[in-house]
């Protein structure tokens, strides 16, 4: 589904991703862990199409297409969803209007007519219940004044509305209480279908108790330095990242 080869990218001339290789097949869940500043969010942003990141090498193929040539909105409509580490506030734009516009853009892309008002409300009701989001939030401006946890839940709500093929969740678990964590995990697990995939970026193994990943990667200084099964997360939780640094050091 997604194939990243030797991807190099930077910001303002500073190299951040230094040759990423990653293969994700339909049906898989990949967890990406790694110390602060190692490039996890940058990788997510490249996949979503953030234009200030300069791509200096490598290729990304998504469902047979050259992803790097696609506009961000087209990537979204082709099924890529990014749950932001820091969701953005948009004052004056109601959540309902925002997500309705998004859903209808997606439908248009698939050649479908816009949802009728009542069908839309029904869909929204159903998804709101799924992520147990407070009804009042939907009537407020996008993320404006939402608490940290509410913002994260709102990301999952939007994911549920858009039903992506490839969801990239950037620390969606950070700042969540235990109940919210379960809700977020549920959201991801529901999306788990043979032809969908997820990338879950996290610092905490506890999320992976709820979302069982097929593969865990460690991103360190712009490279994926270790890939293993879910037991790697436990090991990291226990030992931190120093032993990986040590391993790398010994290697060189």
């Amino acid at each position, binding site marked *: 589904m997604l194939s990243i080869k030797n991807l190099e990218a930077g910001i303002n001339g500073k190299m951040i991703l230094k040759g990423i290789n990653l293969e994700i097949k339909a049906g898989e869940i990949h967890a990406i862990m790694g110390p602060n500043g190692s490039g996890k969010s940058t990788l997510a942003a490249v996949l*979503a*199409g*953030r*234009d*200030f990141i300069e791509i200096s090498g490598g290729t990304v193929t998504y469902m047979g297409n050259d992803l790097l*040539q696609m*506009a*961000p*909105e087209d*990537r*979204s*409509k082709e099924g890529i*969803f*990014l749950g*932001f580490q820091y*969701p*953005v*506030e*948009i*004052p*004056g*734009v*109601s959540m309902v*209007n*925002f*997500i309705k*516009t*998004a859903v209808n*853009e*997606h439908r248009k*892309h698939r050649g479908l007519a816009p949802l009728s008002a009542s069908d839309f409300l029904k869909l929204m009701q159903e998804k709101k219940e799924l992520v147990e989001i407070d009804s009042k939030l939907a009537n407020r*401006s*996008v993320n404006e004044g939402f608490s940290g946890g509410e913002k994260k839940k709102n990301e999952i709500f*939007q994911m549920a509305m*858009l039903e992506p093929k490839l969801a990239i969740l950037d620390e969606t678990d950070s700042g969540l209480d235990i109940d919210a964590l379960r809700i977020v995990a549920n959201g991801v697990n529901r999306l788990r279908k043979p032809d969908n995939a997820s990338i879950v970026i996290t610092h905490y193994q506890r999320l992976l108790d709820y979302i069982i990943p097929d593969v865990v990667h460690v991103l360190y200084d712009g490279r994926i330095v270790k890939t293993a099964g879910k037991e790697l997360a436990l090991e990291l939780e226990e030992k931190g990242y120093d032993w990986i640094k040590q391993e790398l050091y010994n290697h060189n």
Partner: protein
Amino acid sequence: MEREQDNIINDITSGEYKYGFYTDIETEKIPKGLNEDTIRLISEKKGEPEWLLEFRLKSFRHWLTMKMPGWAHLKIPEIDFQDIIYYAAPKQEPAPESLDDIDPELKKTFDKLGIPLEEQKRLTGVVAVDAVMDSVSVKTTFKETLAELGIIFCSFSEAVREYPDLVKRYMGTVVPYTDNFFAALNSAVFSDGSFCYIPKGVRCPMELSTYFRINAANTGQFERTLLVADEESYVSYLEGCTAPMRDENQLHAAIVEIIAEKNASVKYSTVQNWYPGDREGRGGIFNFVTKRGICRGDNSKISWTQVETGSAITWKYPSCILRGDNSTGEFYSVAVTNNHQQADTGTKMIHIGKNTKSTIVSKGISAGHGQNSYRGLVKVLKNASNSRNFSQCDSLLLGDKCGAHTFPYLEVDNQTAIVEHEATTSKIGEDQIFYCNQRGISTEDAIGLIVNGYAREVLNKLPMEFAVEAQKLLQISLEGSVG
């Protein structure tokens, strides 16, 4: 990615101003230049009575003693008032009796602009239209229906002919010819415009609307609107305007006067979409307009709503003189400046009567190199006890080459008055746009969404069907401004 954005921007700039076409129609024009003979000629062409010619000449002589105002936050190039044609009219003899007599080209023009000259129902209701092209009114619809209620809605010229007493009684009482440079100029050379009188106790059953179109080159447009709401009456009035794209600037200097008698209520909405000039700032309309209403009677109300997206330079301050006790003035404004547009707009609320109330909501949007100023005066006179004003002035910036400025003036001479002012400035960030993009919303649509969200409070004040048009217009006028 880069290339794609360039393409988007190109597409948009070429389609930016969709009213920029020119109608090839035979036009009667008088020679360029301005002197007493010009004024006599205009008056003669219009077959005006002596008293009106006198009014014009008096105004002209006064204008000669005045100077262009220089205080606004605007860069205005020198205007050569001798290089303007002061009268242009689509040739049409004799005046059209019915729709069939109207030049088909002219009809096509208004069709293209979406202005029905046929009497037909629009989306959500009936709208009576007075269509003005260059210096003359082309057609007023629904006149008969309105006449049954005693409502007069016609071109200004017709009002001068048919209702001279009303015109004489009210014209120049709210905006005297001495008021300011452009008001004096308009009073000297005004060509046509709309006149509206709502009799005592009548609630006007439909929106009244005037549509102004500049067509001819090198001409100025100087129209006058006079709107009188007699006691206990109500009217909602809408004005729209467009012009062809041209490289040279054109001058538009209008006057609008509103009189609201006891218990009367007037809602005046403007969607101003004169040609704004091109991306480099070439051409466009200079829009210098004096709009003022007086709440003469107790409990009367005047509400201005304006959506200003067009013109190279806009200079206007729709104002309310709150003379009657308990009278109310409102000003709701969205002003957009993109590319090299400049706007200096706002309002004056003059509290004279007791318990008078005014509300000001101004939303400025600047993009490109646009400069947007809010300038507002709230004046509370000595006897205006228990008066209240609330002002809210917000500015939204797109990009970092544009500017927003706020100049609130306060003059309060009564201690019981309560005056509140709030102001905010915000920016549409790339993060917000990217967030929308990531959900499948294009940059253009994202800006539209954000801007309409920002301006919602004002757009909600417009009559329903125009709100939809105004929303689209906001989006169109900002396209290509980020990317």
